[in-house]
């Protein structure tokens, strides 16, 4: 992954020196050409192409913005209801993520989408304790976290 990025930068510099024109536009052209070369030689690398990971990160950002808007609308509906029918509760969520940055990112995403707040991470970092505003559909909440955020983060970190 990092080797591919370094190789791509090296190819871009090489292109700049070959054409002996040291400007930003030349560098960008060289970078794109290096990207094409790396795409063509994808069988040489034993890990994923780094451009896949960049795409996964873009997808994660889009997913986060979508979830943020949807969840805020659902909280607005809860606030404007004349009757308070919600049942706040805590539940434990077992995560498959292991790395520090993955857990931090997942917790931030869960906290920033309203209705759920991460209040504690267990000492072995294997489960999160989440406060949910409406416990009538906890299973649906767990499923939505597991199938949207956790999947997207795993997609980014897959080698």
């Amino acid at each position, binding site marked *: 992954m990092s080797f591919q990025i370094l190789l791509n930068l090296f190819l871009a510099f090489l292109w700049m020196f070959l054409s002996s024109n040291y400007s930003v536009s030349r560098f960008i052209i060289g970078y794109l050409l290096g990207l094409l070369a790396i795409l063509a030689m994808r069988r040489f690398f034993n890990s994923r192409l780094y451009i896949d990971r960049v795409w996964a990160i873009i997808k994660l950002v889009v997913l986060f913005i979508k979830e943020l808007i949807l969840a805020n609308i659902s909280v607005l509906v809860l606030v404007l209801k004349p009757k308070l029918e919600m049942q706040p509760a805590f539940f434990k969520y077992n995560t498959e993520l292991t790395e*520090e*940055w993955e*857990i*931090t990112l997942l*917790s*931030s995403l869960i906290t920033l989408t309203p209705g759920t707040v*991460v209040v*504690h*991470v*267990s*000492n072995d*970092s294997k489960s999160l304790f989440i406060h949910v505003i409406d416990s009538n559909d906890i299973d649906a909440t767990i499923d939505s976290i597991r199938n949207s955020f956790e999947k997207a983060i795993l997609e980014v970190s897959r080698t």
Partner: protein
Amino acid sequence: MKTNDVILQFTAKIVFFIIFFYAVHIFFAGHYTPGGGFVGGLVTSCAIVLLIIAFDLKKVQSILPINYIYLVATGLIVALGTATFSMIAGKPFFTHSFDYFNLPILGKTSLHTAALFDFGVYLVVVGVTMTIIQTIGEDE
């Protein structure tokens, strides 16, 4: 009971660099725009204090093995040295000079000796702030 601070510690590691870069930016912005040595030093201390909050005092001292009292002394020497340098050149105490230089990468840059004096102020502010916080924090 020891809680698991994984989120705070990871965030502090990243945010430390952002705050430190902002401090350097505000230090160099001091000549024409708001900023300067004093604010830059305080913001740098804020970054180190964030690390102390996220980890603990002993760990941060092993990461940054700086004796902050020596840092204060160094800053005072730098500031005084800048001020006395003009006396050697036969001008009154604290006379600053500046000139334009053609540096290899940056091009035409104005270098002013007031920036060196400001750097001394920066070191003194970081040293004093961190000395105060560490001596209070070490009290059992």
